[in-house]
Structures are given as structure tokens and as C-alpha cells.
């Protein structure tokens, strides 16, 4: 029982990280039809910014919001320099360009920090365990991750349902042509989408870095792919679907980790991607999807 609870919290924490990534991916894809491969790097620069800031003496609590803002700026620059000039280009071009941006960001980080992992941790209290039950301790960090995600997702929800800018963003992700025709300021919507996406990704990165205790320039690659799997499972083109898919994926991963014979646990990721392929074949629109698919 205690074990189950622990795994449940694990799954929620993992799912939360994926959810924060997946929302950004889903919005940007919805509006621009761009799978932003560089989104993984937006996750990675979060903790690296925090690292740099704390190294120059900024207290952790201040470093985090500054890092998030910086990540948002990187997101805006990314959009302006690399993606905006390609507005209207075929989807393949956008995808390829995002690969280029991704490699660029990875290597800039390598150039400054070297390729190896570095230790990364938050304030000490996060490493402690809450003695909730006799024998099981729940990691504080996992609770923090889940709580943060819930807060951010809720705020995001309010934003896209209660503000005109947020509603415009949902509208643009649904039907870009109509959004233009009614006079939505698409440039601004895209900028906000990137800010939100980058912000959430960098938060995810900081939390993720703290959870695994180390960061490296390629930190974002696998979470990016997992976030993509999440959006596919949940329903491509659906933002709630992205969040749902993220938690489903989190649970699946923990389930697999727990139930696979020990020789196979390393294959967990491979199995997840095999699962992605299966989903794409069997139910490409995912759980909540909007039938966005093109099949041949």
C-alpha cells in the first residue's frame, strides 16, 4: 500500500513535468503547425540559467523567476529570428528549422558549460521527505512538482478562458484563417504562446533538474519526445488532451518501471516509443483529439 502511494506520487510528478512541456508544444503546434524540436532546449535552459544566477550569488528563490523570464525571452527571440521568417512555408521547413535551432541551443550550452552533467539542486528542504506515513516518506520535491504544475495549469486555464488574449490564442490554434479574418493580432498571439510555452518548459526543467539532481545540455531531448508522445496520446490539437496525455504517460512509465522484469527496465523508453507508434496507427486522434490526422 505504501509502495503504491509512493508510485502514485512518482507518476503524478512525472506526469506534471510532461504536462508543462506538452501544453507549450500543443499550443505552438496548434497555431503554427510547428513541432518545435527546440522546445526541449527551452526546458534545458531553465535550470542552466538558475545555475548561472546562483553561481553569481543570486538566491535560489529569486533566481528561478529570473530564469523563467530569461527563458521566455529566448523563446521570443527564437520565434522572431527563426520561425517568423518562415510563416507560410511548408510544414517540413518549420520542422527542419526547429531541428537547427535545437542543435544551436544545445551546442551554445555545450560551449559554455561543457558536455558533462553538473550537479543541480534546489534549497535543502526539498530533498527531505515528508514523514506522511510510518514507513513511506513522500519526497517533498514530488509534491512541489505536482503542486506547481497544478497551479500553472490552472492559471493557464483561466487565461485561455477568461481573457480575450487567451481566448484569441485558443481560437488561433483552432482555425488560423478565421482568426486572421476577424482581426486577431496573430503576431501578438504567437509571441504570447512562445512566452507561455518557454516559461512552462523552463519551470519543468528546473523541477526536473532538481528531481534527478543533475543537468546537462542534452537534458531536454527525451522529455521533448515524451511530451510529444503525451500530446499524441491525449489528442493531437487538443490542449486539455495534452495535459491528460501527459499524466497518462506518467502513469504508464511508472507502471512499466514497476512491472517489467528487471532486465528490461532500461527498455522503458523504447517501449514508450513503440507505444507511440501503436497509438498513431490505431487511434491517431488520441483520446480527446480533433481528427487532425491525414492518413493515406
Amino acid at each position, binding site marked *: 500500500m505504501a509502495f503504491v502511494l509512493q508510485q502514485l506520487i512518482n507518476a503524478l510528478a512525472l506526469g506534471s513535468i510532461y504536462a508543462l512541456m506538452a501544453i507549450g508544444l500543443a499550443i505552438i503546434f496548434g497555431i503554427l503547425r510547428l513541432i518545435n524540436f527546440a522546445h526541449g532546449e527551452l526546458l534545458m535552459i531553465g535550470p542552466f540559467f538558475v545555475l548561472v544566477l546562483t553561481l553569481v550569488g543570486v538566491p535560489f528563490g529569486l533566481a528561478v523567476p529570473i530564469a523563467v523570464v530569461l527563458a521566455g525571452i529566448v523563446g521570443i527571440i527564437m520565434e522572431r529570428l527563426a520561425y517568423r521568417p518562415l510563416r507560410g512555408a511548408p510544414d517540413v521547413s518549420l520542422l527542419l528549422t526547429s531541428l*537547427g535551432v535545437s542543435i*544551436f541551443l544545445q551546442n551554445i550550452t555545450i560551449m559554455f558549460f561543457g558536455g558533462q552533467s553538473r550537479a543541480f539542486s534546489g534549497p535543502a528542504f526539498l530533498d527531505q521527505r515528508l514523514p506522511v506515513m510510518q514507513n513511506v516518506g513522500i519526497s517533498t520535491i514530488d509534491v512541489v512538482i505536482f503542486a506547481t504544475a497544478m497551479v500553472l495549469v490552472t492559471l493557464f486555464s483561466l487565461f485561455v478562458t477568461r481573457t480575450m488574449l487567451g481566448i484569441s490564442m485558443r481560437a488561433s490554434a483552432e482555425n*488560423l484563417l478565421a482568426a486572421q479574418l476577424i482581426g486577431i*493580432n496573430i503576431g501578438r498571439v504567437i509571441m504570447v504562446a512562445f512566452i507561455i510555452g518557454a516559461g512552462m518548459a523552463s519551470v519543468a526543467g528546473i523541477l526536473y533538474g532538481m528531481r534527478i539532481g543533475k543537468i546537462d545540455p542534452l537534458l531536454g531531448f527525451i522529455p521533448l519526445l515524451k511530451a510529444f508522445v503525451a500530446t499524441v496520446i491525449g489528442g493531437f490539437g487538443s490542449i486539455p488532451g495534452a495535459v491528460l496525455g501527459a499524466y497518462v504517460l506518467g502513469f504508464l512509465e511508472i507502471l512499466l518501471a514497476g512491472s517489467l522484469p528487471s532486465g528490461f527496465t532500461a527498455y522503458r523508453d523504447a517501449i514508450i516509443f513503440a507505444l507511440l*507508434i501503436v497509438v498513431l496507427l490505431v487511434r491517431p486522434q488520441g483520446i480527446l483529439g480533433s481528427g487532425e490526422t491525414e492518413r*493515406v
Partner: protein
Amino acid sequence: MTIERAQVLNGVVLLALLAVFVFAMGLVQNDYYVKIVMLIGMNVILAVSLTITSGFTGVFSLGQIGFMAIGAYTSALMTIPPAAKPQALLPGLPGWLSNLDLVRSLAGVLSGAGLAAEQAAAIAGPLALVVAALAGALLAAGVAVLVGIPLMRLSGHYVAVATLGFLVIVNAIALNLDSVTRGARGLGSIPALSRIWIVYVFAAITVYAVWRIRSSPFGRAMLAQRENVAAAQAMGVDILRTRLLAFVVGAFFSATAGALWAHMVTAVAPNAFYFIYTVNVIVMIVVGGMGSVTGAVIGAVLLTLIPELLRGLEGGATIGPIKLPLLFGLSNIILAVGFVLVMIYRRTGLMGNRELPLFWPAARTTATPAPPVQAPAPLSSKEVIAPTTDS
């Protein structure tokens, strides 16, 4: 002079030039330059393979390097001498494979067939490489069929990520199937069987094969469905079969490149066949022109030489042509920036869809089929072409 005869003449001239080049290169002593030249040849194979897999069909596969890995590992396991792959080290290998010493076995077969010992030994090396490469390529092709049948139905974004997932799966297997691949440490002691002439024979065959396919009805079908799937279907093109063929052919040749690579570097490890190499090859064909075999060749040459030149700027130790991209970032940064600029300003690359017209104008290959004329379809929400003056 008919087009066909002009083409044949062009081919012969090119082959002659290639032979001269290879012979001249054979005289070069510097090991580093030899390896660079071989690497160019291998990248040509990879670039041309990606051209047929993705460039012609427009179906972007990011998993190509996974097939290269299959070719590399398979061929390595066949040629590594038994002393270096004992059961103790690689318990997962079937007995016959552990005991297989391909080079020596072939030498034995050849002398048994009547050749003198030295001749047999001399031929056995290249022959072993060819056999091993083919084995790897066939295995890769088989995997490509299995993977391709489900994946080739999907469209743009899905296929890209699904094939990237395939790459991750291959990487995961290489990292974890210790009993066969030795995991992260990889396999060493691969006999250095690659020679410039062997590499370029493979490259020439690859270029020729893809060129022929391009000119064939299959090639036209591929290009047609890149322009417009619906129209191509209406014209009777079997989309799935076309894409699958492109995918499998690309996988086959990518695997041969992997085998050649393994026998040049004499060691294979999972991190050599991962994301960065994938992007390198993509950059090659984008710069060269995605729909063009000539473009792929040009792109491969440029994108092999330029990083080497740039690497000199990094000031770190370069271990010959063996890339350690994770440690040195600058050349990748420059390439990434260059790539993004190409995407923004000249997306069609150097050649676009065109092939280099060879000596006789009459020998120009068939142009891309013009997309069928149709009444403009109503704009869907995806096709908006907005001016960029909004704030």
C-alpha cells in the same frame, strides 16, 4: 546522339573521372586525409539515401541513422575476429557468430577454390566487407519493411516523430542489449577493411541506383505524391507502396554506409549513431537541394569538409575524422546557424529539384512532373498566406 547514348557516355566519363580520383587518392599517405576522403564517400551514400527516403517523397524520416547503426553493428559482429568476441564478453551471440572469422573464412574458401594464398588474403578483406555490409543492409531493409508498413501511412509531423522514436528505440537497444552490443562501451577490434576504392564503389552504386529509380515510374510517382497526395492518388499512384520502397531503399544503403563506417573507425558505440548525425545528413540534403541526387552529393562533400575546417577553430584536440560532437560545440553552432539561414533564405538549397545537366544538353534528365492543374481549392485553415506586417 540520343539521350540514352549521351547518358551512357556521361556515365562512363564520370566513372573514369572517379577511377582517376580514387587512384590518385590511393597515393596519398596521410592517414587523416584518407579518412576524410572515405568519410565524404560515406556521407554521399547517406545523403543520397536520405534523398530517396525523404527528399523525393516529402515524407520526412528522422530515423535513417538507426538503419546505419544496424548496418554498422551487424557487419562488425560478422568480421570481428572470434578472439575479440568470446562468449564470455558477448553471451548473447549465437555460437556460429561468435566463432565466425569472416575474413579468414573467405580467404580459406578462396584458396580452396584455387587462388594463391597471398591473392586469397588480399581479396578476402574487401570481400568480407562487402558480404558483411550486404548482410547488415538486408537486415536493415527487413526492419525497414516492418517499421515502414505502419509508419508510411502517416503524414508529415507524425512520421517525423515516429521515425525519431525508431531512432531512439534502436539507440536504446544498442545501449542495453549488452550481451550482443556491449552497451555503451560498444564493440572494438573491427578489422580496418575499408578502403577508398571500396567506399567509392559503394557510393557509385548508390548514386546510380537512386538515379535510376528517380528516372523510373517509381521515381516520378514519388515526386508526384510529394507535390500533392490527393492528385497523385487520383492518377493511380499507390502511395503506400511508393513511400515504402523509398524508405526501404534508403535504409538499405544507409546500412551499407554504416558498415563502411564501422570498418574505417574500427569501433562502434551507440552515441555515434544518434541525433547529431541525423541532423548532419539532413543539413547535407537541404543545402544541396532536397529533390536532387546531384544536390545530395554536393551537400555531402560540402558538409563533410566544412565541419572539418571549422573544427580547427575549436582549438581542441581532434582525433582524426572521428567526431566527438558532444565535446566541441563551435562547428555545430556555425552549421546550425548556417542551416537556419538556408531554410529562411534559400529553402530549395543549391540545386532544388534539378540535376546537374551533364555535358550534352540532350542528356538532361527528366524534369519533375508539373503538378496537375486544378481549380484552386478553398483555403483550409492550414493554408493561410498572411503578409508579415502584423505586429
